[in-house]
């Protein structure tokens, strides 16, 4: 499964999952998931809507507990009882739903749980640091003293990403970090991911944008309907990837591009594509 050409570059194994499953009532959101992340490696997690990507990230962040399976972090087997446990192990997460407190302002959200001066908040230093972080991300936020409720979707996402930069984590997980971002901000986040990778952190990134994925990922892990559905390298063809994601070579994407190119009947092919 592991491509030997990649092993040279990547560092020690940071995270390793075996047989992780998660049920919600009658729905099996994840079944027997395996995943390895090494230091200095960007792993892209891709899959269709509802494939279980966010559920997996939430399990790694301590938000959900897995129904079964084992998790090793930094070589030791761990169980993450709550998000605090994951954070103190050095796992930082940007959640898809951002998880911001709408009633707090931008600065308070960025520093939530890690305020400077626990007994006498150092608002000035926090505000300075917040502006620095936001500028790094090319954010367009008029005022960091506005409550998050009044921010635009992209501004919120920037705030959530800025949060994760505060920690000194060993593993950083970004669940669709660029979904709501503008072109400039997206470019900055991709830069950021590369910088973070180069500092030797493990990165897990989820995205539906194959271009972005290919741009920064060292390995692409595909989930389909809650199961592993192959591991690819960034130079895999678009068709290969999309087939693995949707589970069929003939799909909406190919039909659409075919239709747009002209009227050419697509070759019928229905079995699941595994690399």
């Amino acid at each position, binding site marked *: 499964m592991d491509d030997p050409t990649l092993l040279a570059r990547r560092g020690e194994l940071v995270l390793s999952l075996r047989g992780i499953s998660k049920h919600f009532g009658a729905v099996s959101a994840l079944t027997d998931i395996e995943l390895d992340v090494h230091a200095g490696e960007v792993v892209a997690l891709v899959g269709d809507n509802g494939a279980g990507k966010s559920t997996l990230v939430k399990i790694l962040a301590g938000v959900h507990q897995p129904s079964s399976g084992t998790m090793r972090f930094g070589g030791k087997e761990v169980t993450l009882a709550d998000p605090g446990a994951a954070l103190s192990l050095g796992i930082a997460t940007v959640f898809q739903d951002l998880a911001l*407190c709408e009633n707090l302002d931008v600065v308070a959200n960025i520093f939530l749980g890690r305020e400077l001066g626990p007994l006498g908040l150092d608002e000035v230093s926090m505000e300075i640091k917040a502006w620095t972080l936001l500028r790094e991300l090319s954010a367009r936020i008029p005022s960091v003293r506005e409550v998050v409720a009044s921010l635009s979707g992209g501004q919120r996402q920037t705030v959530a990403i800025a949060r994760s930069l505060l920690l000194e984590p060993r593993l950083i997980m970004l669940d669709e970090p660029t979904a709501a971002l503008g072109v400039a901000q997206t470019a900055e986040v991709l830069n950021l991911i590369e910088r973070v990778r180069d500092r030797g952190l493990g990165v897990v990134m989820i995205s539906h944008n194959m271009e972005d994925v290919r741009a920064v990922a060292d390995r692409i892990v595909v989930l389909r309907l809650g199961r592993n559905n192959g591991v690819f390298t960034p130079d895999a063809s678009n068709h290969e990837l999309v087939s693995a994601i949707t589970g069929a070579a003939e799909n909406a994407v190919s039909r659409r591009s075919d239709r747009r190119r002209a009227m050419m009947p697509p070759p019928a092919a229905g079995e699941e594509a595994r690399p």
Partner: protein
Amino acid sequence: MSSSNLVDRGDERLKQSVGVRGAIRAFLDRVRSGDLGPLPVIVGLVIICTVFESLNDVFLSSNNLVNVLYDSSTIGVISLGIVCILMVGEIDLSVGSVSGFASALLGVLWVNANWPVWLAVLAAIAAGAAIGFLYAQLFNRFGMPSFVSTLSGLLAVLGLQLYILGQSGSINLPYGSPMVSFGQSLFMPAILSYALVLIAGIGVFATGYRTARRRQAARLSSRSTASIAAVAIVLTVALEASVFYLNLDRGVPWMLGFFLALVLMLHYALTRTRWGRSVTAVGGNREAARRAGINVRGIYTSAFVLCSVFAAIGGVLSSARLASASQQAGTGDVNLDAIAAAVIGGTSLFGGRGSAYSALLGIIVIQAISSGLTLLDLSSSLRYMITGGVLAVAVIVDSLARRSRVSHGRA
């Protein structure tokens, strides 16, 4: 404009608020968007006071104001606890019972069992803390809605209160003891009260000035020294005038001083510490707070415990004020008044929005109405009707301001 090279004024969409013009425009913007803090409640209070004073000129007499402030202090302390618990989006219906139980315990231990008074007070407060801790456990471990657990608590603690008071039903606290004097007749020396206000004024200026300098140094927008000084001076003068007025009669009650000290401490804790930030976060979005690594259960525990502790302190103060610990202590309107004070002052029942000042302002509104009406010779039925009406009027100003906030999308 020099301000445009400030770090936090870089966005061209921000209206610049420089100089007097800018300040006025900024204020009007705030009025229009309803972001006025406690101002509307104060306006409501002023309306109430004007009306009552015009009906009976004893209302604003120094003597009557001292009474209002005394009465505000006891329930006000309980209301501070309510602010804590409302901030995390929960409720405590049992503060009345807890305060009554604390006063009963004080009476039993101090008067009947001859404990030293400080130990009896400590025991009462500890009992309050234990009750709050129990609620927190029910909430954290069983997920029992606080409405239900504290409703059970209301009944159970009232039972306890009746039980420990037993046959006697009520206990006299020794008249003339420091405890009772504190609750009835202990006033600050005039000079001390003036000095305290002055110190407060200087403190306001000093912190404002220090922050402004640090912000300037970091190229952040900051208030001008003149405006900081102006605010501090206006505040000091207003407070000194109030103190002067109170000193015309009996003076500033120590109990009020104690209450104000608690308000300031809670205000500091809620706005300037990590704990307070966490409380606000948990109340605003519990799950987001959890994901930020905040010990959410710990925060709930602290809020429940604080609420019951404040209730117990309030109970001790009430019994000192009444010089009695009885089966009736804490019954009646205590619960509703304490919760209403916080809500009237602007603390949200849904969590995440509130301040210690809301307890202060709210309870003064309630007690002012109550006192104003006792000065008019009214039958109970009329008194009830008018209380209801005046309460609604007092809050309407605030509601309208907040409504404009909602319509500006910042609920």
